[in-house]
């Protein structure tokens, strides 16, 4: 960590977004993570993404559990809502918040420990509910905050810093999500912002649960020889299956984006995700195909990255549960609390 605050002075030529803000207006407090942590790069990518989408900071909610990764809400968008909850419980808090106010952009920030160990159940049920949120899994294969124990995403054979070799099979969050109906599944790498930023943007604009699993090396406990989540290993073994381009609503598609093997998926707000496919004829709308592709490559030790699957047609929690569109804080008090008589009438229906 650094003691200095990042000075306010900035490049005079910084571009401004539709709201007149610069990327620096989306920054947060100074990171206290280890220098070189992948999580900090993800934060920078996130800042870039929300800046580019021109999201008003006060219309965003950042939610997290516990872990180095879960400290992220403190490091960006100081002017947004934030909730640093308990370990593995962020999905519940997100569910409650989303039910009360469906208008905000929800960004969940979690780690592989927070998500795949203590919070696995919560994670799965949020997916099943198709909770409308971006769920960012900052995946480093260890419990960083508690000094580097293997997490549930550690690969068999991956070596800990002190030499211990992991024996337990990993949970692959993307395969898990595909298997339980997740409507947006992507994987990326903290060291490749050009790949990551469009995925984050598309994930925020997707209506439903958008999982972005980001390999995010822990420089302190998991960036050595023998680790399968190091910068070096990830760079060697990542296999990009799709590059995503996010195209805002009513924007013309540039010719190079329209070329050849491009798959276009239209999101509910009219924006589009263009998927440039690398090599294989990959179909990101085919759930079983995606599952098959990812597992086959995983067996070869490859880390498949890109937008792996998207289904824009499924209703999200609000629609399924017929929740009011209006945020509860905007519902008139009389309607929100109709009084004892109304409650009695409701209860009478169940007698």
């Amino acid at each position, binding site marked *: 960590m650094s003691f*200095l605050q990042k000075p306010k002075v900035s490049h005079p030529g910084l571009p401004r977004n539709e709201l007149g803000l610069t990327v620096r207006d989306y920054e947060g407090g100074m990171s206290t993570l280890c*220098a070189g942590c992948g999580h900090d790069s993800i934060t920078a990518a996130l800042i870039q993404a929300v800046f580019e989408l021109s999201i008003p900071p006060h219309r965003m909610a950042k939610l997290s559990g516990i872990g180095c990764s879960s400290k992220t809400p403190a490091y960006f968008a100081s002017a947004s809502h934030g909730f640093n909850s308990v370990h593995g419980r962020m999905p519940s808090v997100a569910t409650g918040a989303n039910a009360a106010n469906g208008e905000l952009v929800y960004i969940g920030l979690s780690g592989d420990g927070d998500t795949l160990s203590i919070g696995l159940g919560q994670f799965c049920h949020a997916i099943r509910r198709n909770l409308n949120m971006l769920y960012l899994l900052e995946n480093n294969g260890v419990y960083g905050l508690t000094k580097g124990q293997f997490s549930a995403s550690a690969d068999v054979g991956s070596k800990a810093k002190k030499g211990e070799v992991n024996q337990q099979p990993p949970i692959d969050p993307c395969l898990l999500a595909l298997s339980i109906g997740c409507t947006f599944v992507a994987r990326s790498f903290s060291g490749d912002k050009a790949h990551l930023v469009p995925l984050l943007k598309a994930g925020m604009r997707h209506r439903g649960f958008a999982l972005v699993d980001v390999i995010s090396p822990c420089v302190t406990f998991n960036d050595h020889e023998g680790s399968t989540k190091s910068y070096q290993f990830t760079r060697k073994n990542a296999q990009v299956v799709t590059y995503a381009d996010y195209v805002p609503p009513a924007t013309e598609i540039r010719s190079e984006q329209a070329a050849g093997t491009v798959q276009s998926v239209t999101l509910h707000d009219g924006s589009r995700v263009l998927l440039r496919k690398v090599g294989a004829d990959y179909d990101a709308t085919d759930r079983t195909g995606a599952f098959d592709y990812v597992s086959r490559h995983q067996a070869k030790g490859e880390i498949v990255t890109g937008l792996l699957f998207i289904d824009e047609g499924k209703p999200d929690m609000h629609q399924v549960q017929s929740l009011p569109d209006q945020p509860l804080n905007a519902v008139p008090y009389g309607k929100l609390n109709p009084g004892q008589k109304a409650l009695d009438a409701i209860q009478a229906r169940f007698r």
Partner: protein
Amino acid sequence: MQPTDITDPQYFHKVVDCQWGCPAHTDVPGYIRLIAQGRFTDAYMLNRQANVFPGILGRVCDRPCEPACRRGRVEDKPVAICRLKRVAADNRDDVAALLPKPVQQKNGKRVALVGAGPASLTVANDLLPLGYEVVIYEALDVPGGLMRSNIPSFRLPVEVLDEEIGMIVGMGADLRLGTPVPSMKALLAEGYDAVFVGSGAPRGKNLKLAGRDAASANIHIGIAWLESVAFGHIDRIGEKVLIIGVGNTAMDCCRTSLRLGAKSVKVMARKPRQFFKASPWELEDAEAETVEIVVNHAPKSFVVENGKLVGMLFEKMEYQFDERGRITSEKVVGEILFPCDDVVLAIGQENAFPWIERDIGIEFDKWEVPVVDPVTYQGTRPGVFFGGDAAFGPKNIIWAVEHGHQAAISIHSYCQSRDLHERPPYGMNLTTSKMGTHEWAFSNAYDPVERRLVPHVSLKERFAKLDLEVELGFGPEQFVKEVERCLNCDIQTVFTAKLCIECDACVDICPTRCLTITDNGEETGLRQRLSAPAANLEQALYVSAELPQTRRVMVKDEDLCIHCSLCAERCPTGAWDMQKFTLKVPYAAAAADADLAPARTGT
């Protein structure tokens, strides 16, 4: 692009914008840090090494460093570099013990210097410690050149001049005052080993318009008039004064007039303000003293009644500009009379060498300026050197000093029969500033404080005496803040490619978007695809060797780096380090030893 060669001292030198901008390469950030530490004497001596006259220059330097200062690119106002120099001079202790003592064991070489202006004095300063016998011939009864005869004492007090000139003369110069050199031929005949001409550009330009001769009693040539004022030969002027010209001389003339009894002073300019030669601060000071600046008026004639000057006729001008602000056409749109009692002409200076014979191998060009080698400062006759205003026409003190340093190197080489074009090399030192994980040997935090203003004597009091210094200089209230504005551009970001794991931490943290990891390519393209486009072509790109993991390169745009150290603090591997750069500027003494330590770079 090829990886940047940081073993070349000039690469990092250029990053220190002020030092690069200073003709004498003063170690500005170095002395500013010393002031911050309260080490005024050390700050003074560090200055003196490069610019020889810190007390003088801390008041009247032309300050080319300030427009160059990085702070002026990051915010709008540069660091008050010049005023901080004066802080060092005002607060220092006695430095006598730190100055070279007269050398007892002379080296047997005799050098004659013509004129005792800053150029000659610098040559003396550099050669005396090497054992030269230095004879300075000065026509006037006092040394200092234009610094004494023309720069008014309300800007530069006589005591400051006396003290700093005294330091040089005290090293054992043979200063012969009131001794003009009437003939170069005769001087050469005296058998000096080398001659340095530092006689300045002494002739003020005249304005030959109708009425000039009839009114000559009340028309003064600026630099001669200022000299007469300085030496007490003139002590009054009429109530209404017109100054013709918009350079720094004009500013001194108008302010001096106010101190000699003028009630209304107008500076008459032919062109609009953006074409003025005077430094902005000189204009500000003049206007603060109620001098009126009248633009777009071209002098037409002097109006004389009964043999006395009563006014001047001007043509009113109108100009057309192109999109780059240059004048494309002009037209006269009227005529107007400005009544006045006196006119001071401040329209420029010229070189004049009536005392140099034209048949002794010293060539002059068609403007009567001597032909001088811009590297060695030697004229066309071996052993005769030129510097200061005498060399390439009127410049300023700091240039005169730099010419003096260079000429001293040449004279020394010449006296040892070495090739003058083989200049002693620049050197450098780089040492890490790291003290702990996030501790640096300098104040790296960016302080957003605005440029401090120098207190002035109030308008009421300042005209009481001609030699009352107007600027009071920074006191502690100002300078403790001003020093924090310096961005420590000499603490360099030094990169070691093989250590980088491409985690992006440095790229992400940099507040001014200096850093990018990208595929290499040619410069124009590269400049476009950085974290922020590198539009300032005067500032270099620092390109690394290939990075180990992806074969991309780290590129740093030097333009807006505020030297905050955050890149180095956030780097997990120490690939970025902050290293103190010290430029080793060669002086005549270095040419003597030719033993400059070889350049040392970081990890």
